[in-house]
């Protein structure tokens, strides 16, 4: 099997690769979103603490 044959997928390349691409995007997003949220939460915690010290 050559590389171009592999990407051609017997002519079904559009359906196969869009499926795999969608899965990649959705699953990466589900992984990155909580990572970002964590950073955001920790930042907020820092702010709350400073406010607490001032009071």
């Amino acid at each position, binding site marked *: 099997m050559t590389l171009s044959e592999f990407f051609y*997928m017997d002519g*079904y390349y559009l*359906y196969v690769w869009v499926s795999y691409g*969608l899965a990649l995007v959705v*699953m990466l997003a*589900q*992984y990155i979103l909580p990572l970002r949220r964590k950073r955001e939460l920790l930042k907020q915690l*820092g702010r709350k*603490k400073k406010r607490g010290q001032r009071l």
Partner: protein
Amino acid sequence: MLQTITKLASLKNFYFFCGKLLPWFAWPTLILMVVGLYWGLVEAPADYQQKDSYRIIFIHVPAAWMSLFVYMVMATSAAASMIWKTKASEVVANSCAPIGAAFTFLALATGSLWGKPMWGTWWEWDARLTSELVLLFLYLGYMALQSAFEDKRTAARATSILAIVGVVNIPIIHYSVEWWFTLHQGPTVQLLKNKQAMDTSMLIPLLIMATAFKFYYVTVLLMRSRNEILERESHSKWVQEEKERL
């Protein structure tokens, strides 16, 4: 045993427990994905009827299985929240909803992308497809309901009821291809029965991908649960200490 459970029900302990589990699920996910993808896309032979288009199965079927599995975890946690009022189970149920919605969306989208070349249509209102779409709305409804309440405990009571009632849909999805005449094919993989409709050269990568999806699910579930605990406990001392440590 009971003592361990009560201990884990406290959000602080549950947070650190999830943290300890994380690497045991994150790394196997990566390895299983790489092996499963290589096996499914390169090693497995093309189907004699569907040619290479059948390779969508390695995404479609694991995603569809997970859409049901995640719902059962969510509903079980919701039931636990109602019975024992444990906060940890509320956190798990809430974390399940967006992940389940993502898997359901993937199952529907890849099914559509598979249906077009094989059945000649992107969508058909048959029992399997419709009940899976209902599942997506159940997940989205759960998330909408959850965000409609200011107080997390009140929200949990409402969402738990929704999650438990929605369980009715699960056997409908599962048996839809047997109960009704559907465009969607019947079950191919029946591990408990002896006759196997699928060749092992295709079945093995499918099972590897299914396991990879399961490990992936636990990984992102732990991540989301930890976030929600940090959010809920932001005023307690241990969270401040955790913030210093990170």
